[in-house]
């Protein structure tokens, strides 16, 4: 294989489909013009990414416009103020034949008389915030650990990765429960616990990715061109090693939302009166037999959000991983 001046492979560009033709003049400074467009296009060609994107748009839109969408204050006992009888606490939609005189509650009101639809709508904010922040925390620490292990190699690599192995041995939820029990129940502590448990995953992904990128010809080329070690690490290796991390992170958000909701369901995460889906289910769990919608509404909201991140993550992986281009 021969490399010509201006060959993309020499410059360490993220290898998306269809590299831009470059002129020999700007070999060192050229930026691929249509890289982003190409990547976005190949992501949007994936059916799972399309569906995922729609669901995520729905989730983000709901979270952003929550005060406009929700008919009531999520923390206010409107059901009691409106003096609803037990039969009137169920779902009431005027369009579907609910008497006009009765106030509308799409998903009914909960045990404390709060409007469940409004709580589900505001819950999207909590889940989005929880998922993104938890994974962000884990990715930052995990990728630093992974990159250090890969770059320094030898003993450091061994020690760091064995420590990560130890954390991988614990079932995620069990370790998180142990951590939260000591730290004390609360949404922040639940996020810390889930984040800590997730660190090894990203450390491994980053390490593997850096190791493989480091051996590529464009890194050797940069070194031959006299680029500093730090420059090689941050300008050549890091950007090219990010792809698997982005994919793992997107899928990780789905997992984090699930796990924090599980902790909240067990009473270790979000505390009342915060409108969080997991704790909403825990609150009205005993009403399953006479008011299943109180469980179904937040349950489906959780499922749809997690599904969105999972599908989008799958689509990203298929689009960004050249090995999967069938």
């Amino acid at each position, binding site marked *: 294989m021969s490399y010509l001046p201006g060959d993309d492979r020499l410059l360490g560009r993220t290898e998306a489909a269809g590299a831009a033709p470059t002129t020999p003049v700007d070999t060192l400074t050229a930026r691929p013009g249509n890289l982003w467009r190409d990547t976005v296009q190949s992501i949007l060609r994936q059916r799972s990414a399309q569906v995922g994107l729609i669901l995520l748009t729905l989730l983000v839109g709901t979270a952003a416009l929550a005060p406009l969408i929700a008919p009531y204050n999520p923390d206010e006992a409107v059901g009691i103020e409106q003096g609803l009888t037990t039969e009137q606490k169920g779902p009431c939609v005027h369009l579907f034949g609910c008497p006009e005189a009765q106030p509308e509650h799409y998903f009914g009101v909960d045990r404390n008389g709060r409007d469940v639809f409004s709580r589900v709508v505001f819950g999207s904010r909590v889940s989005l915030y929880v998922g993104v922040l938890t994974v962000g925390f884990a990715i930052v620490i995990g990728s630093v650990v992974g990159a250090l292990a890969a770059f320094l190699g030898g003993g450091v690599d061994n020690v760091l990765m064995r420590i990560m192995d*130890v*954390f991988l*041995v*614990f*079932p*995620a939820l069990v370790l998180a429960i142990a951590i939260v029990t000591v*730290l004390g129940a609360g949404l922040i502590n639940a996020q810390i616990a889930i984040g800590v448990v997730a660190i090894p995953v990203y450390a491994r992904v980053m390490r593997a990715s850096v190791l493989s990128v480091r051996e590529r010809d464009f890194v050797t080329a940069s070194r031959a061109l006299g680029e500093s070690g730090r420059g090689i690490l941050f300008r050549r290796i890091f950007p090219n090693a990010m792809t698997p991390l982005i994919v793992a992170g997107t899928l990780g958000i789905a997992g984090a939302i699930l796990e924090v909701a599980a902790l909240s369901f*067990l009473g270790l995460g979000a505390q009342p009166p915060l409108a969080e889906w997991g704790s909403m289910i825990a609150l009205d769990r005993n009403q399953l037999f006479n008011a299943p919608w109180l469980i179904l509404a937040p349950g489906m909201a*959780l499922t749809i959000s997690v599904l969105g991140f999972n599908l989008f993550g*799958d689509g990203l992986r298929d689009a960004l991983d050249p090995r999967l281009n069938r």
Partner: protein
Amino acid sequence: MLQFIARRLLLTIPVLAGVIFVVFAIARLLPGDPCFVALGQRATVEACEAFDERYGLNESIPVQFGIFVGDLVSGDLGTSIAYGRPISEILVERMPVTIELTLFALTIATVVGIGLGVASAARRNSRIDVATMMVANFGVSIPVFVLGLILIFFFAVVLKDTPLALPPSGRLSAGVIIVPLAEAWGMTDLDGPLRVVVDFVGNMYLISTLITGQWGAFGDAAVHLILPAIALATIPLALIARMTRSSLLEVLGQDYIRTARAKGVIERRVILRHGLRNAILPVVTVIGLTLGALLSGAVLTETIFGLTGIGLTITQSILGRDYPVIQAVTLITAILYLTVNLVVDVSYAFLDPRIRLE
């Protein structure tokens, strides 16, 4: 082969040491006084001093770690604060429930998962493929506790009084009695470790009723396990189906498969013999890895279905602030996971000679 197993065992030791240290460190090094964790925020100074004295918490950290490891080696997992009983005793009672549930779920997940994976790979982009992948995506996205509650609602409320109704909680129906294994075998005066083993097996209702021929009780115990096992199996099932499909698709694209087809081997044989055999390795790995998801899921499943396994023990311990129990269960599940993955690694080497020769 023996050499491979020995080397693999040796590699496990530092990880095991790390696991023990982490469990110890969570309790002692994180902010938060263990006394307050155990006795509650309003514990008096005297109560805390007595507590520290009793659990050796007034010693220095390295000494405490020494005591902790020493106790572990002698099989002493500590005493439950809520029950006032040795934790090892509680585990012998409750771990069989979890093992039974987990194995039942894993069986469902493996059989159905591989079946669906093969079916969708064999007929790529067909209706069955699309449906399987939709179910798989849904399966990994629905929270275990939501699925469990929906199953209860559907099978115990909607289908109530039909032949399809299934019990929503517990291990046995009211009135069904199981003769304990030790009694059935006339071993009631047995003592020591053998008795522990007999009791342990006896607490796995499916197995003990099966080997003692208590068919009525066996059926009842099995029926009670169906819903929790389905709830628990969903995530592993979805992962196994996906992995089987993609692994098999990769193998089916290879030249020797084309050769087999060209020779006129029937399609069924091409897929199962030539294809699946070579595609099964990554699936085995996934099965091993899903154990973590199963044990995490068992915490939620047992809580929802009221099965007194170690999962429910954890959640009860949260409310009772019974930290020694949480610590012990965390340790035990980690060791369980470590052991299973060791077995998976060894079976991997067994299935693929290239690995053990590396």
